[in-house]
C-alpha cells in the first residue's frame, strides 16, 4: 500500500492498471481523457503488459473491447457523456453477450447545449443497458470500485459488464490522497481472468452474437435479470472480502446518520460529501436528518433502501439528472422500491446540479427545509422540484 496524490481520472487509471487488463481500447473525450492518456503511458513504459488500441470512436472502443473480451482476455475502456451515448447501442450487446467488461465513466452532461461539466444524465441514460453501475463519492472509491467491479463482473454467477463512475471535474480533475494497494495485494484479490463461455478458439469453435428469435429472446433477457439479482449477493461478498483485505468498507448503499432521522436525503456521487457535511451541521442544530448515498445503482438495492428508510417520514431524493417529462431517474427507482410498503415515507424529488452547476451546502439546506415543510404539511405538493434554477425560462 502506498499513499499517492491522484486526481479521479488517475485513480481510475491506476485502479484499472492494477487489474492487469490485456486490451484497452479508448477514445479521448473531456473530461475522461486523462484515463486513456495515463494507461497508454503505462503500456508505453512497460508498467502494464497490454495492447492499447487507439480506436477512431467510442463506438469502436466498446466494439473492440467486445471482440477482445469474447476472444478471452480482460479489457478496459473509459469515456464520458457523448462518448457513452455513442456506445449506447453496443452496451446492450456487451451485456447480452455476457462479457464482463469494465469501463470508467466521467459523469458529464449530454448535449444540447454542449457542456463539459458534471451531471449524471449520461450514465442514467444507460441504466437499462444491462451494465452494473457503481458511483464513486471520491477518488479512493473510484480506485477501489474498479478493482471490485472486475471481481463482481467476472464472477461466474454474474458475468455482466460494469461501469464505475466519477463526477466530472469535482473528481476527475481534483487531486486527493489515495491509498494505492500493491500489485501483489490486488493480484491476491483479483485472480487472472479465466473466460468461462466466451472464447474464440479454432480448437473449440463456438458462435457468439447469434440471432435470437421470439422463442428464445425473452429467456436470454430473463437470464440477464437473474444475473443482476445474483449480483446483489456477489457484491456483498466481494465488498466484505475487500474490507477484510484492504480495510475500507463499501455497501450498495451507505446510510449516514440516519438513526432517528425524520428526513433522509438520497444522493449519488461526489455531492454526497457536501450532503454529509450539511447533515452534520443540521444535526448539531438539532434537526433529525440523515443521508443515504447510493453506491450501486444497478442492480438497484431496493431491499437495503427499504430497510434504511423504514423509520423516516420524508425521503428527499436528490437527482443530478432528469428524465425529461417526468422526474429524476433515482427518484423513480426509490419510489418504485417503496410502493408496496404499508407504511412508507412521503417522497419528494429535487433536481440539482445539471451541466456542472455547483451543488452547494445552501442547496442541501433548502432541500432539507422543504422536506421539513412537507413533513409538517403531511403531503407533497410538488413531487419534482428544481433547485437553484431560474424560473424565468421560455
Amino acid at each position: 500500500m502506498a499513499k499517492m496524490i491522484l486526481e479521479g481520472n488517475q485513480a481510475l487509471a491506476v485502479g484499472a492498471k492494477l487489474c492487469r487488463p490485456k486490451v484497452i481500447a479508448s477514445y479521448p473525450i473531456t473530461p475522461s481523457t486523462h484515463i486513456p492518456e495515463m494507461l497508454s503511458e503505462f503500456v508505453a513504459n512497460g508498467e502494464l503488459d497490454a495492447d492499447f488500441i487507439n480506436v477512431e470512436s467510442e463506438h469502436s472502443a466498446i466494439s473492440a473491447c467486445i471482440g477482445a473480451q469474447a476472444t478471452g482476455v480482460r479489457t478496459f475502456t473509459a469515456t464520458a457523456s457523448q462518448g457513452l451515448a455513442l456506445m449506447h447501442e453496443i452496451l446492450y450487446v456487451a451485456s447480452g453477450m455476457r462479457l464482463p467488461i469494465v469501463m470508467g465513466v466521467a459523469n458529464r452532461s449530454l448535449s444540447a447545449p454542449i457542456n463539459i461539466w458534471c451531471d449524471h444524465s449520461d450514465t442514467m441514460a444507460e441504466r437499462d443497458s444491462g451494465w452494473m453501475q457503481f458511483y464513486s463519492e471520491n477518488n479512493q472509491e473510484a480506485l477501489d470500485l474498479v478493482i471490485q467491479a472486475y471481481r463482481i463482473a467476472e464472477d461466474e454467477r454474474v458475468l455482466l459488464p460494469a461501469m464505475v463512475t466519477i463526477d466530472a471535474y469535482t473528481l476527475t480533475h481534483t487531486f486527493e490522497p489515495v491509498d494505492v494497494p500493491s500489485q501483489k495485494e490486488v493480484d491476491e484479490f483479483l485472480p487472472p481472468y479465466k473466460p468461462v463461455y466466451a472464447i474464440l478458439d479454432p480448437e473449440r469453435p463456438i458462435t457468439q452474437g447469434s440471432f435470437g428469435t421470439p422463442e428464445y429472446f425473452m429467456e436470454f433477457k430473463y437470464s440477464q435479470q437473474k444475473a443482476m439479482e445474483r449480483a446483489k449477493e456477489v457484491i456483498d461478498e466481494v465488498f466484505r472480502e475487500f474490507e477484510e483485505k484492504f480495510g475500507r468498507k463499501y455497501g450498495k448503499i451507505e446510510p449516514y446518520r440516519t438513526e432517528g432521522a425524520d428526513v433522509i436525503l438520497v444522493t449519488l456521487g461526489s455531492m454526497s460529501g457536501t450532503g454529509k457535511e450539511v447533515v452534520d451541521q443540521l444535526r448539531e442544530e438539532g434537526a433529525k436528518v440523515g443521508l443515504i448515498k447510493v453506491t450501486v445503482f444497478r442492480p438497484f438495492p431496493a431491499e437495503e433502501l427499504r430497510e434504511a428508510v423504514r423509520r423516516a417520514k420524508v425521503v428527499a431524493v436528490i437527482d443530478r439528472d432528469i428524465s425529461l417529462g417526468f422526474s429524476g431517474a433515482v427518484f423513480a427507482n426509490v419510489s418504485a422500491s417503496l410502493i408496496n410498503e404499508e407504511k412508507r415515507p412521503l417522497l419528494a424529488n429535487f433536481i440539482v446540479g445539471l451541466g456542472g452547476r455547483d451543488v452547494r451546502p445552501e442547496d442541501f439546506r433548502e432541500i432539507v427545509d422543504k422536506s421539513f415543510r412537507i413533513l409538517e404539511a403531511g403531503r407533497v405538493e410538488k413531487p419534482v422540484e428544481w433547485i437553484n434554477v431560474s424560473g424565468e425560462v421560455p
Partner: protein
Amino acid sequence: MKEEKQLLAPGHRMCAGCGVALSARLCLEAAGEKTIVVVPTGCMEVTTSQYPETAWRVPFIHVAFENAAAAASGVDAALKMMGKREGVNIVAMGGDGGTFDIGLQALSGMFERGHRVTYVCNDNEAYMNTGIQRSSATPYAAWTTTSPPGKKSIGEFREKKPIGYIAAAHGIPYVATATIAYFADYQKKVKKALSADGPAFIHVLTPCPVGWRFPPDRTVEVSRLAVQTGVFPLWEVRDGDIENLRITVKPPERKPVEEYLAVQGRFSHLFKPEKQQDVIDRIQKMVDEKCERYGI
C-alpha cells in the same frame, strides 16, 4: 477429389442461389479451419447463426452492423496478448451496407491501425437484408426500393463508391477485387490476403437473385458477365500502389455491357416500355473509360 467437411455447414437459411453464401463458402475453403470469422449484421449473419443452431464450424462472432472491423481489431489484439496470434486467421465478412456505408469509419480505423485482419466485402449492391434498399455500392441506373425509376428518375443516379481504391489509399499490404465465378482467382487472393503482414481487403461481387431480379440459377453467370463486360474488373494492388494495379483476369474480348444489364430485372426499366439507349450508352462509356485505364 477429397470429400471435405464444409466449414460453413448446410442448413443455413440464405436464399436459393445466394452469391454471398457461395462467396463465404469459397473464402472459408481457402482460409481453412484455423480461422476466426467476424461478421456484422446482415443477410449472412441472420441466416447462419439462428439460435440454437449455427452453420459455422469455425469460431464466429457478430457484434452489430457498423463495427465488424472494430470487433476484429479487438480479436487481433486479444490473440496477440494471449500469445495465440500465429497460425490463426482473422476474417471479417461484411456486406456492402456494413462496409461501404455504416461500417466505413470502423474499417478505415482498422486499416490505419494495421490490424492483421482480412476483410472480405460481399457486395450485393444494396441493403438486401432489409429488402433491397439503395447503398453507396448500388450502381448507376439500378432499381432499388429507395432508388426507384420514375418520371423524374432513372433509378440510382450516382456512381458506385470506389471502395477498393478507398481501401488501397490506406496503403495497406493487399487489396483485391474478386467474384464467385472466378473462384480460383478469388481463393488465391484470399490466401495472399491472409499471408499479408497487416490488413487486407477483398471486394467480392456477389450477385443477389432476389435483389437484382434474375432467376437463382444465373448467379454465377451474372458474376461472370460482370467481369466479361468490364463492369467489375478483377485486380489486385499491393501496399496501396495503385499505379501498379494488376489485372488478374483479363476477358479475351469485352462483351457489351448491355448483355450484363439485360439479364437483371433491376435494369429492366432501361429496356421497357422503351429502350433507353442513351442511359445504356452512358453506362457503356463509363465502363469503357475504366477499362481503358486498366488496359482491358
